């Protein structure tokens, strides 16, 4: 089963995403970017759903940039989910190498479909 790390400081958002993805992916969670980075190095997930504005030494943009600049991590599929809906925020997301950008509020089922297509996983959790 492909593994996805959910990173958001709001537990309700993590729970919502977990419910939408749990029948397709093996899931891990982190409440900030520092904890997430340690998990990424240790677990090497296939995909990361990453909030932008979080407490700690890094925000989501900075963590995404760090992942995409590291050859060993760059192939991970990073989806930014953010309350920052301005055009310049989306451009910044593109600039740091994010693979997709979902503005809150977003459809958790659309997120599941996107990750399924990106990681080639069908609705039953098997390779598509």
């Amino acid at each position, binding site marked *: 089963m492909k593994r996805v790390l959910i990173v958001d400081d*709001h537990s*309700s*958002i993590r*729970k*919502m*995403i977990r*419910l*939408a993805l749990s029948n397709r992916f093996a899931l891990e969670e982190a409440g900030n970017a520092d904890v997430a980075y340690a998990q990424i190095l240790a677990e090497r997930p296939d995909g990361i759903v990453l909030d932008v*504005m979080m*407490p*700690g*030494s*890094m*925000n989501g943009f*900075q963590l995404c940039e760090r992942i995409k600049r590291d050859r060993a991590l760059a192939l991970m599929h990073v989806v930014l*989910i953010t*309350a*920052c*809906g*301005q055009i310049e925020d989306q451009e910044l997301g593109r600039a740091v190498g994010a693979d997709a950008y979902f*503005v*809150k*509020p*977003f*459809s*958790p*089922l659309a997120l599941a479909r996107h990750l399924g297509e990106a990681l080639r996983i069908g609705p039953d959790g098997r390779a598509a």
Partner: protein
Amino acid sequence: MSQSPIEAAWQHCPWGMAVISADGSVSAFNAAYGEHLCLSRDDLLGKSEADLDALTAPLPQEYRRVEVLRDDVRAIHFLGDASGTEVNAKHLANIAEMLREPMASVYGFAELLLTQNYDEDTRRDLTAMLLEQVEAMSNIINQEFDSHKWGAPAAVPQLPTPLTQPDPGESR
């Protein structure tokens, strides 16, 4: 000992200024910067740029970051009073971002409840979380649109009673 003209300008400038050192942390700031953030010297020195972004994002003050090409200084952050229009526009943008968080939960849980076949306990759990998030949105609106910030009459709280679900056993 008297201040040099540069030191006097730094200390008395109405714009808050914080110096970000090469390692990305706050190495110095002037009095106005500390006042804008209501933080002491010990609280601010050593904070990362991400910490500053998080601290300044909710503020109505105008914020700018200037990249500095020096070995010992990476950037200077400026924080100052903007015009009323700019303040309101920035404040509204901040409120929109604050509302998007609980709104995301409301949208997501509602979509899942509508499309997925969950058992009764899960449905009750999700419905309770939905109501919590609506209450969080209501609190943001009540706090952010109060008379101190906008010069408008104070709003009456819209949720008069705690949001609790009836016990199914009580309906008989």
